Each structure stands twice: as C-alpha cells, then as structure tokens.
C-alpha cells in the first residue's frame, strides 16, 4: 500500500514535469528577472550595474511615462463599458432570433473577432482612407470636409477604441448569449401576463439575472484593454507615436528602440502591478455586488 502511494507520487511528478519546466523557465524565471532588471541600468542585451531604485525615481518624473498611463486609462474608459453594453445589446437582439437565422446573424457579428489584428488594421485603414475611404462620406457630412482620422490627435484614441469594439465585441456577445439562454422563459411569460413593458422586463428581470455575466465581461475587458498595444501601434505607423503612446508601447519603445532594458523592466513592473491590483480590486468589488 505504501509502495503504491509512493509510486502515485512519482507518477504525479512525472506528469507535471513538462508543465513545471515550461512554467518555471518561461514564466517564473522571466518574472523574477524582470524585477531584478528593473533595479539595474542594463541595456536590452548585456549586463548592467545595480542602481537601486533609480529607474523608479526616474519613472515618477518621466512626463512621457505619465502620458502613457493617462492614454492607457483613456483607452480603457473608451472601450470597457461601451464594449460590454454593446455586447449585451447585440446579444439581446440576437437571442430573439431562432434556428438558422440566429446562426447567420450571430456569425455576422462574431466574424471580426477571429480576424488577426493586422487584418482589422488593414480593413479599417481602408475604410477611413483619406482619399477613397467609404467612411469619408459620413465624416464629410459631419465635419464638412474629408478627415484624416488617424492623423488627427483628438480623434485617434476614440477611432482606435471604435475599431477595437468592432473587433472584440463578438466575444462579449457570446458570453451574454449563453447567459441570456440560461434565464428561464417562464419568468418572461409571467412578466408578459403582468403586461410589463420591454423596459420594465429588462430592468427588473434581464439586468439583475444577467449581472454575473456582465461582471465577468467587465473584468475580462478591463484586464484585456489595459494591455493595449497592437492596434495603437499599427494605426500610428507613419505618424508621431508620442501623443497617443500607451503603456505597453512605451515599454516597447524603451526596450527595443532606446535599448533601455532596465528602465523598460521598471515600467513592466508598473504594468504588472497595475493589472494585478485591478484584477484583485475588480474581483472583490464584483463579488460583493454579486452577493447583494
């Protein structure tokens, strides 16, 4: 019997070994190294000397760092809640349909989500193209002239947020759809008998019952959008990146363009901490509301 248990332990360790190796080498080790690197003045590749908290001191005085924090926060504000609400709205519209009609309509809303970001970029760069873009018709109607959306500073972030919502909303729609399906139809029938109007039904039945899903979507969105890089990087290509710089982009530019490995690691630690703090806070907050 003891022999048996011991062999179970050996087998367990053997099964875990491949994962433990990848996890250790590709996750734990880089994390430790990141913290260490942030206390040195090392270039991207090569050794540096220990400089204590200097990188962090520099960071707090770095105007461009704070710009990138502000831009990231702005992007999060522009995407997280709108994306969640639009997802819920579309899911409610789609859930009314049945059978093949639902499949077709859902596919139309979901298809953008499975595109690579560079394809999304190509499509929307063409849509907004200054000379021939089809979006210039509504833009001309609104602003009276053709508008270089991704070269106009105040429009840049909202436009990238708009494209991001178009791209990623499908995911939220799916989660909301499965949530809506799990609400019993009896409740709606009872409400219909009581002559409740659509808004009352939504406010009194759908919204409270769907809240756990909403909470999940909000959390996923928040964590995801804090890590924004791809779209901002692609759409700013050929223009000035500084005014719309976001956090991950600042890490990228410090490490890979300025060759400041140590400083980039310090900013990475900041991003690391921000994301974890938000994850924990949001989790607690959502749990508290969920229990109410």
């Amino acid at each position, binding site marked *: 019997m003891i022999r048996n248990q011991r062999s179970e332990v050996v087998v367990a360790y053997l099964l875990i070994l491949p994962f433990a190796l990848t996890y250790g080498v590709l996750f734990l080790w880089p994390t430790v190294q990141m913290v260490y690197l942030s206390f040195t003045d090392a270039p991207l590749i090569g050794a540096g000397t220990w400089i204590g908290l200097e990188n962090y001191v520099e960071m707090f005085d770095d105007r461009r760092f704070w710009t990138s924090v502000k831009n990231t926060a702005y992007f999060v504000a522009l995407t997280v809640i709108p994306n969640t609400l639009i997802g819920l709205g579309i899911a409610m519209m789609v859930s009314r349909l049945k059978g093949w009609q639902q499949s077709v309509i859902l596919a139309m809303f979901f298809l953008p989500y499975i595109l690579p970001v560079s394809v999304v970029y190509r499509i929307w760069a063409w849509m907004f193209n200054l000379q021939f873009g089809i979006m210039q018709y509504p833009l001309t109607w609104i602003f009276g002239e053709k508008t270089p959306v991704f070269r106009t500073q105040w429009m840049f972030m909202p436009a990238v947020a708009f494209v991001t919502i178009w791209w990623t909303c499908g995911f939220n729609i799916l989660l909301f759809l499965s949530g809506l399906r799990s609400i019993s139809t009896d409740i709606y029938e009872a409400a219909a008998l009581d002559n409740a109007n659509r808004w009352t039904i939504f406010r009194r039945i759908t919204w409270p019952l769907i809240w756990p899903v909403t909470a999940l979507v909000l959390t996923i969105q928040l964590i995801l959008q804090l890590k924004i890089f791809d779209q901002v990087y692609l759409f700013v290509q050929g223009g000035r990146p500084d005014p719309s710089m976001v956090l991950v982009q600042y890490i990228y530019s410090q490490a890979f363009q300025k060759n400041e490995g140590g400083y980039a690691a310090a900013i990475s630690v900041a991003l*690391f901490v921000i994301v974890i703090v938000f994850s924990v806070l949001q989790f607690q907050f959502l749990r508290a509301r969920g229990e109410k």
Partner: protein
Amino acid sequence: MSAVESQSADAKAATSSARSRAIKSLDIGGLILTLITVIFAVLWAFPIYWGMVTSLKPESQVISDTVEFLPRTWSFEAYWHVMVNTMIGRWYVNSLVTSLGVTAITLVTSALTAYALSQLRFPGRTVLWFLILASFMVPLTALIVNHFILMAQLSLINTWMGVILPQLIHPVVIIVYKNFFDSVPKEYREAAKMDSASEWRIFSRIYLPMNWGVTTALSIVIFIGAWNNFLWPFLAVSRPEMMNVAVGITQVNDAFGVQYARELAGAMMAAMLVAVLYLIFQRRVTQAIMLSAGVKG
C-alpha cells in the same frame, strides 16, 4: 357561487385579452426589432465584405470616386501579385508551424498536469494549484522584455521555437481540463485500478477519450489565438522570411507599394484560414471560447 364563477370568468377574460394584446404588440415591435437587428448585422459585417470586394477589383477601379458595391470586372491580380512578390507562402508555413506547435505543446503539458491535479495525491498539489490560479491574473504582456532577453540568450530569436516558447503559458487550459477530469465518475478509475491499469493507461484510455470534445474545443481556441497573436511574433522575429503571416502583411510595406487592393488581398489571405475554420466549426468555436472564459456549456 355564480358570483364567484363570473368573477373568475372575468379574470380569465382579462388575462387572455392581456395576453393577446401582449402578443400583438410583440409581433409589431418584434418585427421592427428583427429588422433593426438585420440592418445592424449587415452594417457590422460590411467592413469585412468591403475589404474583400476591394481586394477583388482591379487597382484602377479601387481608386474611383464612386462607391461600387460589386467589382465592375472581377480581378485576382492583387492576389496574384501578393503571392508572387511577397513571401506570403513562407509566412503561412511559419504561422502554421508555430500555431500548431503552441497548440500541441500546450495541450499535452496541460492535460497531463490537470490529470495529476485532478486524480492523484502528492505533496505540493495545493501549492501548484494556487500558483496556476494566481498566474491567471498575471499579465504576460509585462514579460515581453524578459522573454526577449531569454530567447536571445538561448539564440532563439528569428526561429520557430523562439516564437512558440513564450506563448505556452495558458493556465486556463489546465483549469478547464481539471474541471472536466473532476467530473468523470470515480467508478471508472476504481474499476481500472482493480484491473491494475497504470495511471498512464487510465489517463490515455479513459480520461482523455471521454473528453475529446474539450480537447477539440481547446485546440481550436489555442490555435486561433496563436494564429492571431501579434505582439510576441512581431518582437521575436525581424527577418522577413521568419515572420508569421499576421506580422508579415503589416511589416513588409514595400512589398505592396501603395496599392490598396494588394494590401487588402494580403489581409484577406491572412484571415482566410481561420475564417474558414470558424465558418465550418462555428458551434465548436463558440463552445471553445466560452470554455476559455470559464463558462461551461
């Protein structure tokens, strides 16, 4: 008696008229809502259609001042140009190899670990489980600098392995597998134990086959994720011939010139494989995405 009866009849009439009114208003309102849904869906999908149609026009029709929703003449010139003048074939192979690599390695390591966590008792089990749950919150994006340094130290920059390795951390796959392994009835395992089957046999003959659906779903979602991943493949590769297709179509600008149809043809080709995969396996893909978000069903 009769008063009660008439009252209940009244009540019945009232409910039935309320119901018929509700149904009536639902029909008109519902029809309008359906119409809005369809229009909105068409608008939503339009950019993809527009990109595709543009890529099928001759360049001279692309840069016209009128909007033409169908090409006057269909042309595959742009696709032909991209195939001949860029390394898109090579990029496709790179994407396929690295995405399949990420998928296969992640699935194998995760399934084995999940089985151990779910069915075996060993010291350190709880600690490992907490580590996995905790790493769920950690942003891998913050590790790009150190992943790059590590891959450079291992001389893996500009190689398939260098693209694959940092993408292997997917704690959610273990979590999903463990949930499903947990729900396999204990009797199967006990019966197999009676026949003195080894753990490996129990895993590969019972637990894995019983969860093929999960494996398929997870592999689809990991594959699509790896295929579409931009940031890491973009950092890990600088040589055009080692790029993934999603990176290649944006980084090699001079390959296209300022030719919109060609840029879009490249984009359409980059999206094609995964789009077709989705349209064929629609149900599986949606299931897979729910699973990865921690929603069973």
